[in-house]
């Protein structure tokens, strides 16, 4: 039975890992092998970093990578700030209008604006063709606010009462007590936001006319999913590697940064996620 289980597990793992291996192998395979194979390569004859050199040589992909990093870092910081403030405020029992605000937050979970109303709002705020259009319309996620609020509601009242007796005001309680106690939850919610910003391509497509401002995921979609071909000049290089290698290198480049964050936040995951799951 154990052997059977192991075999099934191995097959399941292979189903997931072999395509990844193919992506990485193709990105590292020499161009002539990729051409000969007619596309994907599972075992490269030799390792070639040409595709990565091309992708990171300062052309459209490098620029898009920097844009994505910038939008993700700034967006996550903005989102965490406004979400934490709103969640903390609505978790305080003495806040005036708390129920109405929470109801509004919940309503936004039920009724989400569609593409065109969102576009009209962004346009009316004068955000078209600005990076702010990638951050502000999605800065606040009702789901994340609910998760954070649940955590703040769970903070022991004695701690905040003690701080108040010691002369702390609400801002000091928030920044010096509530936030430091919420690191696990902030890490998890921050990751949710970061992944959302990192993966977003549609907002950029709608709101940014200038392709020089495009984030990596829109570049990925354009050149890998929709298969608009990249030229050597787009990448700022002289000789173009095989298109499949380039496409797979872009794919790997788009996945690696967010994968790198996971190990650092992993230990906070159980605490952070369970907090929102048990109390709302």
């Amino acid at each position, binding site marked *: 039975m154990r052997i059977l289980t192991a075999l099934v597990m191995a097959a399941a793992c292979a189903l997931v890992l072999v395509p990844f291996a193919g992506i990485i192998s193709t990105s590292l395979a020499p161009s002539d092998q990729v*051409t000969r194979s*007619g*596309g994907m390569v599972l075992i490269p004859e030799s390792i070639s970093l040409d595709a990565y050199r091309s992708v990171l040589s300062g052309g459209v992909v490098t620029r898009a990578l920097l844009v994505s990093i910038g939008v993700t870092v700034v967006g996550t910081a903005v989102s965490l700030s406004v979400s934490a403030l709103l969640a903390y405020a609505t978790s305080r029992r003495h806040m005036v209008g708390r129920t109405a605000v929470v109801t509004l937050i919940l309503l936004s979970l039920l009724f989400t604006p569609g593409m065109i109303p969102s*576009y009209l709002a962004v346009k009316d705020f004068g955000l078209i063709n600005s990076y702010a259009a990638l951050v502000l319309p999605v800065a606040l996620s009702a789901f994340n606010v609910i998760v954070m609020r649940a955590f703040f509601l769970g903070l022991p009242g004695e701690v905040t009462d003690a701080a108040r007796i010691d002369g702390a005001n609400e801002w000091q309680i928030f920044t010096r007590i509530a936030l430091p106690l919420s690191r696990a939850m902030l890490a998890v919610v921050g990751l949710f936001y970061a992944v959302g910003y990192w993966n977003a391509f549609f907002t950029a497509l709608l709101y940014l006319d200038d392709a020089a401002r495009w984030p990596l995921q829109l570049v990925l979609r354009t*050149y890998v999913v929709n*298969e*608009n071909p990249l030229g050597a*000049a787009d990448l700022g290089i002289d000789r173009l590697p095989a298109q499949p290698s380039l496409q797979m290198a872009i794919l790997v480049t788009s996945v690696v940064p967010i994968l790198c964050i996971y190990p650092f936040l992993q230990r906070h995951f159980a605490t952070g996620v369970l907090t929102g799951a048990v109390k709302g």
Partner: protein
Amino acid sequence: MKSTSSRSVLSRRHLLGLGLTTAVASGALAACTSSGTSGTGGPASAVDTDILPTYRSFDEVVPDLAPQPGLTSSGFFRYPDPVAFSDSAPGDGRPINAMVQTFLAIPPALPQNAYWQEMNRRLGSDLSLSITPAGEYAAKFATAVAGGTLPDMFHVGPTPSLPAFMEARATDLTDHLSGDAILNYPGLANLETDCWKQCVINGRIMGIPIARGIIGVPVLYARSDVLRERGIDEDPASFADLLELCRELTAPQANTWALTGVPMAYLRGMLDLPERWALEDGSFVSTLTDERHLQALEAGRALEAAGTVNPDSAVAPLSQKKQWLAAQTCALHADSFVSWFGLYQQNAGLDGFEIHALSVPGYDGGQGSQVQPIPNVGISAINIDAADRVESLLAVASWFAAPFGTEEYLFQKYGIEGTHFTWDDGDPVVDPDTANQVELGTRYIADATRVLYAPGRSEVVEQAYDYQSRSNTKVIKDPTLGLYSETASRHYDSLNGALLSLELDILAGREPVTAWTAGVEEFMAGGGTEIIDEYRRAHAEAG
């Protein structure tokens, strides 16, 4: 200038509805397909041919291979000595905003783009472009429509109720383009009359065709060098020959298969079978219930069952299939006629790479039919809010449509000499370092009539010309050109998608060929009957 008082007015709510419907519409640009938006207006309507523009071909450049009307394009072995096309800059000095799609890489922005800067200088107006990858254009177009941000000139994206949309958002061009009026815009006058049928809406010319003419036809390419190596020097003369050829070219143990995919258009051509619609004895009919569909599917199944089709073909994108052809993984590949030249460009580094289009034989011998879709890949329009400068914008469109052989064409397709291209034995050779600046997508506002030209490959031009001469003597034309069906504009894509999905299932052996009949019944019940009725009425109206 046409009065707008008679226009049907679209409310913001209606436009939002249009936009939302457009946003969820899938896939191909409706304006480019026969999905109900190929012209005219009303639930079912047709073109009033009296208002069509006069056709005047540009004859200041003499081709090496003369065009034969309806049969071939012009063929050029070398780029002719460029002739001047316009006396002055077409722009009025005011900025021009435009929205286009592109199938290529997005070009550098204006400050980093010497070509774009030079284009602005030559146009006499600053051109501001919103360039969107073709795969995302539908969403971008829908938001621009609903947001009221359509620019001065725009490529018309997929739009249900096209007549209502065009009446509300596009400038009526009839007074400027109908009959001889178009002669003021010689680039546009050089577009063949048929192309304009798609632009006639409710009896008025509301758009500009993005014409491809007879170079957009589907063909089946063969790797000539591979066939020659195997001692094969004749094209198949029947389906039995094709099957035999495919078997001969297939060796799965060597990772090679004959076909990159089942060439259904080619098979239907063998059977003289229109894909969806036809004119029989002067009346519009559907061919979906034609027994020959079952025969074409049986033929496709036979190719699959013989193992001659690459097993990944159902999920492989077109670029992958082109890679298979280049890598000799497959020796036969169905594509568009215009890819003939592109495939050579893409595989310039491959020694011995040689292709030709297979003649279409009859299923049991004789001559088959060349399928000829609608001659345009869409239409563009001038915003109704820019109606006060329509003459200048049409002059710009005419400049974009400058014919092959002119200085304007040379600049638009190849850029600035010394910066974007150099001359080599009479042909412009693109500089790969700056090539990405040149494609701005303006060809989706207006474009020249296509000719046969492959720099440095005169033999390819001859082959392509010969193919056109032979194959276009017997053609199956899409009869929906110039006809409009409201039901098709709303439902054809989903109905046709279900049929195509069924076709894939049948070819893969997941469904029997007989399942086609039930699929067609569903198509008819889901709106197909209304579509046929509307097209029939439209065709009858057209006389």
